[in-house]
């Protein structure tokens, strides 16, 4: 009964939620935008004044910005690569009937429920620690020199931790996609003489392509803003080796107390995220049309 009155009532009833969500989004955005045009340093209170695009100029010409941009892309790309490929393989394994399947599935999904700070600390102190870590112990028991992960391979270590957290998500989505594959199609392919590899590349992978794009989109959104893992492990170092855009903005605001410069960085990050989102949405749109 979509009469005029019911529609009006529906709008009225929805409006509190919509208005709240809108304010939630627009107030911080406008304030950030406003701060980004001010000289606003916490160490010099009372000297705020409008300085135009100067903050942007400083942020974009800072050599740290390009390093951070590269690190961000490496972090997103590396994690996506590991989680998508690993997720596909794990999903295929978990799709096979075996004893204890329920428990194994639960265990695989478990890392997703551990909060980022905790998982980063666990990795830092229990696994990757050069003296007390499990990896170091394994290396020593084979007679190798233990790797000092955060000193020698800092960015790769971060990627590894983040990938460990997101692998369950990818596995879960890809497993459900795999389970919706029609068994008769696989049987038909078997009768058509397709071996296991051909069946994977001609049937399973195309069937999963939609789920894979969804995984890539959702993960990209979250991976662009990885922060906790960096803060509790490397603090962006050594040097700038693990500083991504998010961490750079944090450093600008809370280590250098430059609110104006950090706000400009935040706006730049928003624009970058939108550029990425634009391409991803187009990619997904193409995939969903089929």
């Amino acid at each position: 009964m979509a009469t005029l009155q019911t529609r009006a009532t529906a709008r009225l009833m929805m409006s509190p939620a919509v208005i709240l969500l809108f304010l939630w989004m627009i107030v911080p955005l406008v304030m950030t935008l406003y701060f980004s045009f001010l000289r606003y340093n916490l160490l010099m209170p009372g000297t705020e004044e409008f300085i135009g695009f100067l903050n942007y100029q400083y942020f974009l010409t800072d050599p740290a910005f390009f390093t951070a941009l590269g690190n961000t892309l490496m972090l997103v790309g590396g994690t996506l690569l590991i989680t998508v490929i690993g997720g596909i393989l794990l999903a295929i394994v978990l799709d096979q009937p075996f004893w204890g399947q329920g428990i194994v599935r639960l265990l695989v999904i478990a890392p997703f429920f551990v909060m980022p700070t905790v998982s980063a600390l666990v990795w830092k102190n229990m696994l990757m620690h050069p003296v007390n870590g499990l990896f170091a112990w394994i290396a020593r028991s084979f007679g190798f020199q233990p790797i000092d992960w955060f000193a020698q391979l800092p960015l790769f270590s971060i990627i590894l931790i983040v990938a460990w957290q997101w692998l369950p998500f990818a596995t879960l989505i890809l497993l459900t996609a795999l389970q919706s594959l029609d068994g008769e199609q696989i049987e038909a392919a078997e009768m058509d003489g397709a071996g296991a590899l051909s069946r994977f590349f001609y049937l399973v992978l195309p069937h999963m392509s939609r789920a894979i794009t969804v995984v890539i989109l959702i993960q990209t959104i979250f991976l662009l803003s990885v922060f906790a893992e960096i803060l509790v492990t490397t603090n962006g170092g050594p040097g700038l080796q693990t500083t991504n855009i998010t961490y750079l903005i944090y450093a600008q605001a809370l280590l250098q107390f430059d609110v104006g410069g950090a706000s400009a960085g935040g706006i730049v990050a928003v624009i970058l995220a939108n550029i990425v989102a634009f391409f991803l949405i187009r990619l997904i749109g193409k995939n969903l049309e089929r």
Partner: protein
Amino acid sequence: MGSITLEKVSKSFGTTAVIPEIDLEVVDGEFVVFVGPSGCGKSTLLRMIAGLEDLSGGRIVIDGKDMSSEAPAKRGLSMVFQSYALYPHMSVYGNIAFPLKMDGQDKAAIDKKVKDAANILNLTNYLDRRPGQLSGGQRQRVAIGRAIVRQPKAFLFDEPLSNLDAALRGNMRLEISDLHHQLKTTMIYVTHDQVEAMTMADKIVVLNAGRIEQVGSPLDLYRSPRNVFVAGFIGSPRMNLIEGQEAAKQNAVTLGVRPEHVRISKTEGAWKGTVGVTEHLGSDTFIHVQVDGVGKITVRTDGDFSTDFGQQVYLTPEPARLHRFDANGQAIPN
């Protein structure tokens, strides 16, 4: 070129025997239909022949070679599935070409074979479409196309028409029969629809609870069913099965008479009864009559015969067309 022999083939899931032991001979070029109620094991039997299901015992011999443990692709059979099982992300061309591509044939040969198959099946204009853009009948034809390009020793059909509407089903029945005459390849066809079995088969295999009840040509089964099950299953509308006094008069436990072999009259006859529901098909009329002391009898008569609900009528079965069955349900020869 396409003879299939089943020797003592059996199948059990765990401790439940789905198919006890079956012996069956399919001669080259024959159109064999497995028919039976759902759950009788006919699809399982077909999947065992295809190699999609392991045998629990016995041998499957195709063209004189034991293929019991050979992979499905090596058996040289192709199958049309109930859901068609087309590859949704490939075009019609891609679907039909897939088995040839897997066989490693060169592009030109594949192209020619796909075009030929499309020609036979009237799919030439649809080669670029995806399965999702086709109607049910067209999808069915693509599935058949994918089966014929391999030039298999035999085709296996697993209830291929059950997803189509009645009109289309009639058409596809003719098309598949036509195809069989063109290709002269062995076909094994599974269905629960006895009309499909009667109209298409050279040889019908009636299955019930994993056992073969009777094997024979459609008219054999129609004229001389070996037992009550076959009698009741083959023929539409179903044969009237009469038990009790009326059967005992004929020295039988169950007496069977087909609706088309009962004469109906408004004035005189052997049995007196009351007309229930009347179904007018135009060409025929099915009249359900409640006969005193006999039970419900269905009568098939010509389309012009008209009665009213509750009217008194008289029925006379044709004595020569009566089927008599003993206590075990086996036919007693006349």
